[in-house]
């Protein structure tokens, strides 16, 4: 499915877009509306057929692009994303929940015991709950917008790529390099844990710039060297167990993390 390009079609038409929310905080959908100054410019290029957050129009049968927010946590959601894949030429995931299972993914560990920790009798309205997983664990995904929540302009950028194509490579480097470039001091020197060491770059080190260590919301970088990162923790007096525990926040279901232990 990837490589589908609306711009290549013979008769260019306004792409029809649907926006669907699964298990999430809705923050990434809100971030789209937070592109206030650009909102109508962005929406002017597309035909939003279905966006439950902003409109009471029903979901159409036909559309070109599906934008999916949230993790898959029920059998019903699994069926929904499969249907979206069948109907849409392009699938875009937005945010950590859809892309890496994000914070909801934390519940994947020991999932079967968890509902009983919240409910005495799990209400029917919860549906058929399954261990949380990212959208790409269920279907092929063409484009992804990372970060928790997504950056509005990042979304606009990825949408443009999906609509018009781009050969710009998606960065895979770790965030540590961004701090060196920004000339910000390192938390490890203060014996504080920071996940920038192994997290995929692209946010400009937003949290670190504001005095807060990285919590890894962009997910593990494919270039991450976990054994070396653990050594670095030891060298700086940061417990390795804390490092591994912190990584669970956005990478609980990442297969790379499961096999490295």
């Amino acid at each position, binding site marked *: 499915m990837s490589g589908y390009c609306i711009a290549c079609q013979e008769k260019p038409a306004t792409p029809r877009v649907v926006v669907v929310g699964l298990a999430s905080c809705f*923050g990434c959908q*809100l971030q789209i509306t937070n592109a206030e100054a650009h909102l109508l410019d962005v929406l002017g290029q597309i035909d939003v057929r279905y966006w439950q957050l902003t409109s*009471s129009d029903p979901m159409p049968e036909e559309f070109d692009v599906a934008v999916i927010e949230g993790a898959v*946590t029920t059998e019903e959601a699994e069926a929904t994303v499969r249907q979206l894949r069948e109907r849409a030429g392009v699938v875009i995931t937005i945010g950590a929940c859809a892309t890496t299972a994000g914070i909801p993914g934390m519940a994947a560990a020991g999932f079967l015991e968890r509902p009983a920790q*919240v409910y005495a009798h799990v209400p029917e309205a919860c549906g058929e709950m399954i261990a949380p997983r990212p959208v790409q664990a269920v279907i092929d995904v063409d484009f992804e917008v990372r970060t928790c929540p997504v950056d509005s302009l990042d979304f606009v950028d990825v949408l443009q790529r999906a609509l018009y194509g781009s050969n710009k490579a998606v960065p895979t480097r770790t965030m540590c390099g961004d701090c060196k470039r920004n000339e910000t001091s390192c938390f490890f020197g203060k014996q504080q844990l920071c996940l920038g060491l192994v997290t995929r770059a692209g946010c400009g080190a937003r949290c670190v710039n504001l005095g807060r260590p990285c919590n890894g919301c962009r997910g593990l970088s494919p270039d991450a060297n976990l054994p070396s990162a653990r050594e670095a923790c030891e060298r700086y007096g940061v417990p390795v167990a804390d490092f591994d*525990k912190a990584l669970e926040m956005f990478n609980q279901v990442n297969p790379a993390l499961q096999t490295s232990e």
Partner: protein
Amino acid sequence: MTKTAIHVDHVARIEGHGNVHVVIEDGIVKTVEMNVVEPARLFESMVRGRSWREVSYISSRICGICSASHVVTDLKAIERAFGVQVTPRTRALRELLVYGSYLQNHATHLFVLAAPDFVGQKSVFPLAETDPELFDKALGLKALGNELCTKVGGRSIHPITAVVGGFTHELEAGEYRALAEKMDEAAAFAAAAVDLFASFPVPSITTAGDMLAMVEPDYYPVECSDTARFLDAGIEFDANDVAAHLEEYEMPHSAALLARVRETGSPFFTGALARINASWQHLGQNAKVAAAKAGLRPPERNPFMNNVAQAVELVDALDRCAGICRALAEPGGVEGSSEPVDFEVKAGRGVGFTEAPRGALFHALEFDDEGRVVHASIMTPTAQNVANLEADMRLLAEQLVAEGAGEDDVRGEIEKLVRAYDPCLSCSVH
């Protein structure tokens, strides 16, 4: 026998997933259900075993629009558990953060989600063409809320800088002054928003339940107090005792836990309307004038007036935030530093309490001596409101049926009522 079944699958223009089921038989309203089907992410289970350092970062993700409230509430819970006293400056910054989410939330709810109901549209976008000035100013107000959250918290959603004991980053004096000026500039539009929402005709109903709000002597509190009050029952309690007064219960049709007053068994409303009823006398002068002009004075028990109450809070929030920003800009204008204070991690329990944009929010956290969460209980305003919303939906349906309203009218007015409650279903399930 005539039977009318009204099903609204996935109520639009609210945050999260919910369906409405109403069954009317021979003119009698039989079933009224707010079917909350938002996926359960199981936050209370998820934070167990996590460090105090991570817990506010994780629970922020309960909700995008109320993230600032979840963070501040969690920090208050942790600080109560560890016995941390923060400075007045830190409290002022937290109040700004909470108000930033009020501006975002109320502007979004009123103009993007609720207004289309009253101008006969399915979404806000046609408004951009028919009334571009209103559309621009409404988005401008929402943008100002985002800017306030971004400046103070580092990001409009999921704040970065607010941590246990203080803030990791603070603005320059000039930036506070610039924010205050923007607040002043937005004031006229907020006052006009009160008039606009007061001009929309709404059904006259009297809410079925009690009301719950934070209270504080001589102040309109959203963050600074630990005291809550059920207005009708006259029960006032410290947030640490919330479980003794607020009873959560399960229903099969709702993934959110419902709530009632433990002592009276009554459902209750929490949100802007409850706050205005509890603290009307502490509103700022401009907000009071706007409220009086709109006919909003306690006791106001029509849940549809929650829209007007939110608009009044916009007026109040702008004045209040402008004042706080100007004080923060003056050297020594607000006592203390916002740098995180020192504290000791220890075993303990604390309940954080804030007034989120949608109402009373409680996070109860218990820690072991290493500062890891042993038990967590999160009570969000929308979950608290579900039972009262259902009771009000029933009242409204009965009234409309008695007036001989048709199915489409009943459906339309019930959807409007749901939106007037400004439910955040993603919060309610969490």
